[in-house]
């Protein structure tokens, strides 16, 4: 066990995976000598050389498009998009190429690749650096989407992502890169993609969150527990595939659910979760599923971002609201 923050855990994992398999290579902007703008790839070029740690020209579509070609031909590319907001540049290569190639070729080809990208607000970045865009990819069948919230989860899930035979989008909450340190198993391990983590068991209300939003959600849970609520907290960890079973089991037990995410409300992952509960556990719930989310606007300027991001206060309020709305 070693104490690591999330960025160190990611750096450690990349190194470990590259040592394990020489077909793993990483590519992206400023990931070489500079070690990535967040230092996620720090030192890797010294260890593995420029053939496996590739500083590319500034072209996202090319980074993802070439990774698709590499992946189909037997390499294991781990591509970095410097900030998630820049991923739109490569939307065709991800949604229309990487995600579809298996389907389109009736299983003859597949693209086992990982795309890493930092996202999340609360760190006063310039425009387009903070957006949470996971719903776009949930809507693009053929790609998996992972969003860890702890250093250990980041490690186990990144190893699993690199081993996965499908394209995986691995989204890293910038806000949590250095926010917490914990003991992380050094030895290689994987966490199953698609398995949510029940962080805390409780009987009154199920709170579901993931990635960056876990920080405020955890604070809210503490506050609510102090106020006498028994909260079951679920960290989804993976958006696609979605761990429906854990969600449904929990909601059947608590009969109430609030989803917290940083992305905008409309057509967000929260809407999907709400629909699933509606379909599979309607007669077990005693209140509508509520969502605490970003507002339906582009991610805003720094002076108002803290009001935009779901705060502990908003989460607490919605949980109390659900409680009041309950039929039983």
């Amino acid at each position, binding site marked *: 066990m070693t104490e690591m923050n999330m960025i160190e855990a990611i750096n450690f994992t990349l190194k470990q995976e590259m040592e394990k398999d020489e077909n793993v290579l990483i590519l992206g*902007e*400023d990931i*070489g*000598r*500079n*070690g990535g*703008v967040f230092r996620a790839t720090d030192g890797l070029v010294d260890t593995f050389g420029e053939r496996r740690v590739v*500083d590319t*020209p*500034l*072209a996202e*579509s*090319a980074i993802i498009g070439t990774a698709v070609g590499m992946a189909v031909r037997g390499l294991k590319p781990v591509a970095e998009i410097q900030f998630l*907001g*820049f991923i*739109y*540049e490569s939307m065709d290569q991800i949604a229309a190429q990487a995600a579809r190639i298996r389907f389109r070729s009736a299983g003859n080809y597949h693209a086992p690749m990982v795309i890493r990208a930092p996202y999340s607000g609360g760190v*006063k*970045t*310039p*425009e*387009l*650096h903070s957006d949470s865009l996971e719903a776009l990819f949930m809507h693009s069948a053929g790609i998996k989407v992972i969003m860890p919230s702890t250093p250990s989860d980041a490690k186990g899930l990144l190893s699993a992502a690199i081993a996965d035979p499908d394209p995986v989008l691995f989204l890293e909450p910038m806000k949590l890169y250095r926010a917490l340190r914990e003991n992380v198993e050094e030895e290689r391990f994987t966490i199953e993609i698609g398995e949510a983590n029940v962080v805390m068991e409780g009987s009154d209300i199920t709170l579901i969150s993931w990635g960056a939003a876990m920080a405020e959600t955890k604070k809210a849970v503490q506050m609510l527990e102090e106020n006498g609520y028994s909260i079951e907290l679920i960290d989804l960890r993976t958006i696609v595939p979605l761990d429906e079973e854990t969600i449904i089991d929990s909601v059947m037990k608590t009969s109430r659910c609030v989803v917290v995410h940083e992305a905008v*409300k*409309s057509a967000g992952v929260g809407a999907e979760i709400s629909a699933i509960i509606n379909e599979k556990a309607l007669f077990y719930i005693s209140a509508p599923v509520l969502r605490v989310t970003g*507002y*339906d*606007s*582009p991610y*805003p*300027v*720094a*002076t*108002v*971002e803290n*009001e*935009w991001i779901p*705060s502990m*206060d*908003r989460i607490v*309020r919605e949980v109390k609201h659900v409680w009041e709305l309950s039929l039983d």
Partner: protein
Amino acid sequence: MNWIEPNIIDVNPLQQLNEQGILTGETSISDEEKLEIYKWMVKARRFDELAVKFQRQGRIGTYAPLIGQEAAQVGSAFALEKKDWIFPSYREAGACFVRGTKPSSFFKYAMGHLHGGILKEERIFPVQIIIGAQTLHAAGSAWADQYKTNGAVSVAYVGDGATSQGDFHEALNFASVFQLPVIYFVQNNQWAISVPYHKQTNSQSIAQKALAYGMTGVQVDGNDAVAVYETMKQARSLAREGKPVLIEALTHRMGPHTTSDDPSKYRSREADEAWDKKDPIFRYRKWLEGLQLWSEEEEQDLNASIEEELKQAFNEAAETTTASLGEALGHVYEKPTNRLKEQILEWEGSGESK
């Protein structure tokens, strides 16, 4: 000749004012304009130094320094007319000042104010964060001007890194096919964050890329405000006739990429020193002094007045009350959707509006 080898193209930068401040070419710039250009460059640099300092003190957010690129920015913007449009990246404070942007706007932008940044009246598009995206906007704007035959040109400012983006290539192709009144002004400052020019492209120059699109290209010493100005003037008249131009201004980003970047990770002080000798302001001042247009006393007066202006600008920005989230949400659509109205009400009622 059937095979086109890359080295058949010989591109040499235009220079008119050399590193020692000696005019080696000709210029049409009047004495009054010569001084104006100088003052804009000095203002850009002082602003830059101050912005970096304020960021370090935590008084503004992330800032992208322009030091070293004053001649490229001021020389090019100064050659434009009021009716022209510019499409900047995040590093173009110098060019924007020439177009009328107040330093306080830039401070506000860096502080994350809703109303920070630049204005429509200045005919400047909002600061672009997505590398290269503005190249297509400039083509579209030029298209509109061509359609309206109003004689204006559009200028997109990009870095060398942006020339790797698909948008850039699509923009050049459209500009040329449709003969648009547009100028692509690439500040080749040698670096795209940590990636040096030679790893960005294998072309010997960016200017030569124009050839593939059937348009005119030129490389200019970007630290020479005189050559940049003259080149831009000429490009402007070509563009007006429907001959788009690609300009590569060779310059150097003397500072870090942004205030959160540490260049010692990827470049050496020694390599930078050769460029320091090409400082655009130093040579320009030498030239003015040689022409008896400038003195140490005037320099001090200028510095003092800029100092005062920038201090006031910062205070103005610092005293500006921040807009509320509710106001920000009112700018998503012309009329808020029902869902947004609901969210604004929810936000107002939430007690967080205090």
